[in-house]
């Protein structure tokens, strides 16, 4: 990776809807340094999640370029973007989005399997131990509490040692204690990963304050103070 882990160059994402054109993201230009942490804040519907989706290669911009590391992912085919996600990216969502038919360990193990790991569940078990979930490894998601599920989701996002961690409202559905713990976890993981880049979408100022830098969006654009 170069010094800029993420580079957005006049990136736009527009949707055609029956009500007219929606400019979810409108000509955003932004650089995020490798190993840094960034909070993206803004009111509901300002385009935060869409921006995160563009960075993660889940969405393709209508205009502009998205570069992650040294790869301009906005011009990559879906196949390549998927390979990038499985190798370099880790996603955490507001809803845990765990696979309901997989145990906690298997949910994490799937990410390893996708990366082609041949070491079995080794690191997955380590992470569960670190997160205090060793006793819950073989439980299905509906047998875990909300906080436990979110910790499993974070373990899933970190297990393959991604260079870029993208979190979309990771504390949105948690109480204050759990929120604090989750942000701690993310920051610890970022540091432990040897300088991974962390981008967190949040509307919680307390969470944003704990990250290195904050970008505020309004109507799909970066709001300059």
């Amino acid at each position, binding site marked *: 990776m170069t010094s800029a882990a993420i580079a957005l160059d006049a990136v736009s994402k527009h949707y055609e809807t029956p009500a007219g054109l929606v400019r979810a993201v409108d000509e955003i230009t932004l650089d995020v340094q490798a190993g840094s942490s960034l909070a993206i804040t803004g009111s509901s519907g300002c385009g935060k999640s869409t921006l*995160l989706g563009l960075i993660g290669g889940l969405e393709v911009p209508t205009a502009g370029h998205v570069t992650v590391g040294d790869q301009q992912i906005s011009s990559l085919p879906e196949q390549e973007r998927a390979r990038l996600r*499985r190798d370099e990216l880790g996603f955490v969502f507001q809803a845990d989005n765990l696979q309901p038919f997989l145990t906690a360990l298997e949910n994490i193990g799937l990410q390893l399997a996708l990366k082609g790991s041949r070491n079995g*569940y080794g690191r997955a078990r380590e992470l569960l131990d670190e997160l205090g979930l060793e006793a819950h490894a073989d439980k299905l998601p509906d047998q875990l509490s909300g906080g436990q599920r979110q910790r499993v989701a974070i373990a899933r996002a970190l297990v393959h040692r991604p260079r870029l961690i993208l979190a979309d409202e990771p504390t949105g559905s948690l109480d204050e204690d759990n929120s604090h713990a989750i942000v701690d976890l993310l920051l610890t993981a970022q540091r432990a990963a040897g300088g991974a880049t962390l981008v967190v979408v949040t509307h919680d100022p307390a969470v944003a304050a704990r990250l290195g830098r904050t970008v505020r969006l309004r109507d799909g654009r970066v709001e300059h103070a």
Partner: protein
Amino acid sequence: MRSFVWRELVRNPRRTLASLAGIVLGVGLFSAVLFFVDGSGATMTQRAIAPLALDMQRVLSSPLGGDLRLTQRVFARGGALRRGQRATMTLTVLNPSAVPANEVVVQDDPAPALAYVRGTTRRDAARLRDAGGGSPLAGGLAGSGLNIGTLRPGGKVTFTYEVRARRALTDVAALRLAARVSTRENVVPVQANAPANLSAQELSAQIARIPAVVAADALSFADLPKGALGTAVARVGDPVRVFAFDERYQRRYPSIRLASGGFQPGSALLSAEAARTLGAGPGATVQLSVPGRAAPLSLPVSGVTDLARAKPLFYSRKTSKLEDFIYVPDSIVVSPQIFRREILPAFQLANARRGSSLKSLPVSEVDVLIDRSRLHTDPGRALAQAKAVARSVGRVAPGQDTLIDNISNTLQVARDDAAVGRRMFLFLGLPGVLLAAFLAAYAGSILAGAQRRDQANLRIRGAHRGHLLRMLAYRTLALAGAGSLLGVALGFVSALAILGPSTLLKAATADLALSALIAIAVGMVTTALALYIPGRRSLHREISQERREIRASSAPAWRLEAAVFAGLAVAFVLALRARTFDPPAASVSAGQAVTLPPRLLLAPLVAWFAGVLLAARAAIAVSSRLPLPAGPRFGSPVWGTLCRSLRRRSRSLATGIAGVGLVVAFGTAIALFGATYDGAKAADSTFVVGSDLRVTPSVLSPRPHPPSYARKLEVPGIVAATPVVAKLENSVLVGPFDQNRQDLTAIDPVSYERVAALRDAFFAGSSASTAMRALQANPRGLLVSAETADDLSVEVGDRVKVLLARGTKQQTLKSFQVVGLFDAFPGFPEGANLVANLGYYVAATGLSKVDYFLARARDSSDAGLARTAAALRSGPGRTDPINVDSRTTALDKDQSSLAALNIQGLVELDSLFTLLMSAAVIAIFVFGLMLERRREYVTMRAQGMLGGELRALVLGEAGIVAMCGVVAGLLVGTGMAALLVHVLRGLFILPPGLVLPALDVAALAGLAAAATLVSALVATAMLRRLRPTELLREG
């Protein structure tokens, strides 16, 4: 609220279509079958009566006429009687004919209201002694009446006696007077005061005036002994039948064919056989000897007629043998006038002679054709119409004849067959409704899950449970209503396409409208319930479906299910052993309708559902024990994920398998049933014909047809031909204790085995080839029907005597040894009793004339048979007239009219809907899967799962469902078809064997596979179009 529901349906076209698809197809199938039943029923009347030659026959009980007249009067002053008052009874017997009446018996008992006054009976004023303390006319306790001997032509006898009133009678004329008179010549008693007998001509004229009667024609015939017909130089050596009918009758029944010449007043037609024997043709003169006539009747010949196929003339008039066709080759046709003027009086005279014993008396009848076009298309209603006409016909000059109502008898069988057909068709349509309900419930349960989020939003906006329930009711009504209407439209179009407008539109509009209403009502009720119940349940659901379904079912529940299934299996086996599913024994050969209790049709339905549910349950059991990738690792992303999903979500898998299984099982059962039904029909027809083709030399042929003629029939397309001698009652079997007339068939065993449709099952405790070898090895061997052997206490190995060629000059008594028994013999469904070696038969009788030849065709398809028959007609038949019957053209009166139903049309209809439904159920499963699991798939995409891997995942799950469903469906469908064929075996002469139409079944399985592949590909393509960031944010 209604507009909200409407917008929701319109804006979610995929959900709406998924819900509608199953309903439309299921109701479409059900309604199509109802319309099919209407259309088929509409042709059943015509189909049933088509082979019927004579609608009604009024056979005169006193064809010789000349019956005595008996009048009876009671004289009382003022026409009334006080209790105890006397009155005089007068009986007058008059012989109005020109011949004496012998053994005249007068029988009378006073009416119950009157008591005989002892010693008051007088005959022509002379006092008669009482008999047994009562009236001499009563004839004592036996009630045999008084025999007054012979009454000369024009003679009259008067009896009087006194009666006393047991109670007051206001009108003695109203008393029922019951005196009767009978004679040796006419043993059927004539009632007192009966109207004068009409002649057949007078009767036909009166019957013809009945509005629904198209024609009423007099037909008379009399059987004459050998030598009765001849010319100056030759005589017919066999019995002769003399017919009396006119040209109009001949035109009415086209099976009476004129070979040469025509009707001329005062002349006669000769049958082709008689003409050939006598060497006489138009212009010649023949002499006919009639009993009672001193000199033969000399008749000029005006034509030659072929009566060989004139069934109306030769069917037996004996009420116990109405179906028997007894052909008399040597016949002569005279005009009704000649018969009335010359032949009847001669018979009367002969019959009146003291000591005469005529073997058979003339038969006179009126053959009635009713207006068939007026008959209702439904056999039941047509039967009521025919019976009404029969009553009208019977009211014309009653009491002097027997009415044989062939058309009502036929329609009665057709009505019963139609009822069975309806039940059978409904069975084939009922699964449509059940599948519609299943598909609606299936789609409903999947969509209900998808709608939970919308419902949660509505609740946030203030909608309470009542609002949501009302919206669910509106949605259900809209979907079930629209689906049922569209289904009925689809059903009508499908039935129209299969049956054709000319057949379907023959059905009464009211019947079609009723079927449409039934289909809409049944479709709406079942699918509405199927949609509403899962929707209502989902409103109560707190925990997501997917989480709930992952929980393993408790062991006791599984044990309970296993116990229930085991119990059902044991009950089914016991029921089979107890022959619960056996149809009631009925013989279509005996003209009986097939009875089919609904419980028998219910059995395959129950087997269908139970079998598929059992298979689904087995799938759950197997998938929940699916081995996971070995060792402490996840395995490959696709296989590891798929295994765990199948293992832990086996219930949703089982629902999909049940859906596919139900459809495929139904389709398989229908395909097997259709193929078996067609196979059984073909086998029956072949059995009736004897082989692929039956060649009968025409009576017009001047050439002899010895056994060696078979070689001339071996034209291209014919594998082999074999000669057969077969006639009704042409032999007498003399057993050790008894003897009886039998139908003997003589065959050449070697060629017969190659040609005829023989089955090992026909030969009790033996095989076809063993029986034929035995007959070949021992020319004096005899095969005996098991029934005849039982009747005459004959066993294999017994030596018996057989009178061969009975009733001909060549009849001869020969010894035989019984070499085998048979239960059935091809070509003779009405029962050949004896089968002998043709070579020996020819040597013993000197008769080398063969009755017909059986031929095996190289190509036994319908088209192949038609081609081969044409080759026979244009080959040996060009110079020597022959009649060729084939499996397809033979009139098979032994089959139930049900067997003639357009079952193939119904099978095509069912197959079409099955194919569509199997595609629909797989599509609903796959798209339901997508709807239910799209967040899972999008999460996997975010985790870096490649498009191909996702496709493999979806395809894997859908493929396993399709494969398990198809396998379960094939197994259950085969069992269901076996049960159905078993239940319906009474429809056929030969027990049908299950036929597997490999192509049809492969097409069904192939379509299921193709539908799986296409659905999975389309579904994953749709997955790419989803907006992942939105989905992943959803809680």
